[in-house]
C-alpha cells in the first residue's frame, strides 16, 4: 500500500467540502453570472450518484470482462476469442457518447443509457487486460502444472490467475478511470452525476457551474486512479 497514492483521494474530499464555501470566490471570478454556485443538488449528492454509477457498472464489467477473458483463452476457444476481438474492435471505434445518445430513444432519459455505455466501455480494458495477461503465462509453466497433476480448475486458480493478477488489476484501474469519464458524459442523457453541473452550465451559459463540475469530475478521476493504484499489489517476482 503506497500511501502517497491516496493523496488524490484526500484532494477530492477536500474539493467536495470546500467548493460549497467558495460562492463568494466564484462570484468575484465570474461577475456577470447571476448564480455563481451550483445549488440545484448538493455536490456530495452528485458525487455519491457518480460513484454509484461507476460502481454499478464496474462490478458487471469486471465479471463480464474477466469471465469472457478466461473463456477466450481456454484451449479450443479460438472462436470465442475471435468474437471477443471483433467486438472489441467495433466497440472501440464508437465513442461512448455515441452509445449514450443512441441508447436514449430506446432506454429513455436518465441513468439507464449511461449505465449501458459504462458497462460496455468498462468491460473492454478488463477483457483486454485479462486475455493479454493469460496469454503471457509461459507455456512451460502450464505444461509443468499439467504434468504435476493439477486439474484445469487448479491450474486456473493457482497458476494462471495469480500470474495474471497484476495486468488484470491494471485493466480494472483503466476501466474505473474510464467509467468516471463516461459517467460524466451520461449527464447529456440526464443521468445525475458530477457531469450535471457541466451540462447545466453549458446549456445556461454559466461558466462557473461548468468549472465546478469539471474540477470535481477531474479530481474524482484522479482519486479513483490513485485508490486503485494503491490497491494494486507489487509485482510477484522480486527485483
Amino acid at each position, binding site marked *: 500500500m503506497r500511501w502517497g497514492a491516496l493523496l488524490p483521494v484526500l484532494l477530492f474530499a477536500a474539493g467536495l467540502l470546500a467548493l460549497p464555501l467558495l460562492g463568494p470566490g466564484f462570484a468575484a471570478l465570474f461577475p456577470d453570472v447571476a448564480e455563481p454556485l451550483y445549488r440545484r443538488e448538493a455536490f456530495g449528492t452528485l458525487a455519491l450518484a457518480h460513484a454509484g454509477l461507476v460502481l454499478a457498472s464496474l462490478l458487471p464489467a469486471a465479471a463480464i470482462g474477466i469471465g469472457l477473458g478466461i473463456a477466450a483463452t481456454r484451449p479450443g476457444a479460438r472462436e470465442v476469442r475471435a468474437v471477443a476481438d471483433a467486438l472489441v474492435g467495433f466497440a472501440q471505434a464508437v465513442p461512448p457518447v455515441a452509445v449514450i445518445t443512441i441508447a436514449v430513444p430506446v432506454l429513455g432519459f436518465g441513468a439507464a443509457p449511461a449505465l449501458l455505455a459504462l458497462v460496455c466501455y468498462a468491460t473492454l480494458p478488463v477483457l483486454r487486460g485479462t486475455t493479454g495477461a493469460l496469454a503471457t503465462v*509461459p507455456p*512451460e509453466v502450464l*505444461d*509443468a502444472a499439467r504434468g*504435476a*497433476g*493439477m486439474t484445469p480448475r487448479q491450474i486456473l486458480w493457482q497458476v494462471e490467475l495469480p500470474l495474471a493478477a497484476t495486468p488484470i488489476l491494471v485493466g480494472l484501474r483503466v476501466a474505473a478511470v474510464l467509467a468516471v469519464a463516461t459517467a460524466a458524459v451520461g449527464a447529456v442523457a440526464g443521468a445525475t452525476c458530477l457531469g450535471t453541473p457541466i451540462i447545466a452550465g453549458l446549456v445556461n451559459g454559466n461558466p462557473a457551474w461548468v468549472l465546478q463540475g469539471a474540477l470535481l469530475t477531474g479530481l474524482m478521476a484522479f482519486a479513483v486512479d490513485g485508490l486503485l493504484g494503491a490497491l494494486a499489489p507489487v509485482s*510477484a*517476482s522480486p527485483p
Partner: protein
Amino acid sequence: MIRFEGVRKTFGATRALDGLDLEVPEGAFAVLLGGSGAGKSTALRTVNRLIDPDAGRVLLRGRDVAQEEAPTLRRRIGYVIQGIGLFPHWTVARNIGAVPRLLGWEDRRIAARVDELLALLRLDPSAYRDRMPAQLSGGQAQRIGVARALAAGPDILLMDEPFGALDAITRQAMQQEMARLHAATGKTILLVTHDVDEAFSLATQLCVMAEGRLLQAGTPRELLDAPADPRVRDLLDGGAIGMRRLALVSAADLAAPSAEAPATLPRIPAGATGREALEAMLAARTEAAVLVGSDGADAGLVALKDLLRA
C-alpha cells in the same frame, strides 16, 4: 514397468508415433534417443497422459494409463521439462511442495520433505527454501525442477530434454547428479534427448527412435556391438563407435597384474575407463599405462593391444 503397445498418434498431417512398441523394465534408466521429429517427446507424454494416443495403449505395471483420471495419474509420476517451468509466483519450497500439497499432505510433512529434497540435490535448504525462481541460476532452477518432480515420491520420473537449455559445464554436472540419484533411489527413469553423449553417459537402456517407431532398444554396449539398423549406426556416429565402446569398459578389466612397472609409463586411477587409458597412452606416447589403486600402489598394467579386446 512401462510398456508401449502399438502406440499411434497423429497431429494434423504429421504422424508423430507410428506404432511404438517398447518395454522399460523396473529400475531402468531408459533414454529415448533420436533426431527431431522422431516422436520421442510424444512417446514420453503419452505416459502421463499429457497426450492420449489415437491407437494402442500404454501400461504402467500392467495397468492401462487410460483407466485412470489424468490428474491423479500425473501426481504419481515425476515430470521434468527443458523449460523447467517453475511457478514464478511461488517460492522454491512452495514449488517443490506443489504435488504433495495437491495430494493433501500436512504442512509439516511437506516442509520436512522439501528440506530433504534440497539436501538430496545438494542445495542448502536454509539458503534456498525461500528464494523465488527468478533468483536462481539455470542449473539451480533445474535442480529445483527435479526436486519438484521427486517430491511426492513417484516411482517413475519422466524427463523431456531436461538439460537442453543448460550450458555444457552445468549440463555435465546435472548428468552426473542424475546418475547418482538413479543409483541412490532406484527409480525408473524415462529420459528424452537428442544428445548421443548424454544418452551414453546415462542410459542403462538405450532406445533409438526414428519416424515414430522404435529402431532398437538395449544396453549401450549391445547397440554399439550390433546395431540393428543402419540408422542406429549412423546416429551412434560411425567414426566414434570404437571410442564409445572403450568408454563403456573399465581399464582394470583389461589389465594384467604387474609387479614392477617402469616409472616412465603414465599413471591412471584404477577406476578409469578404457578410453581414459588410451588417452593417457596417446598423451605420453607410450604403449602402456599403469593403474594406481586408491592406496597409491600400482594395481596393474594395461597395454595398447589389451584395448583391442574391449
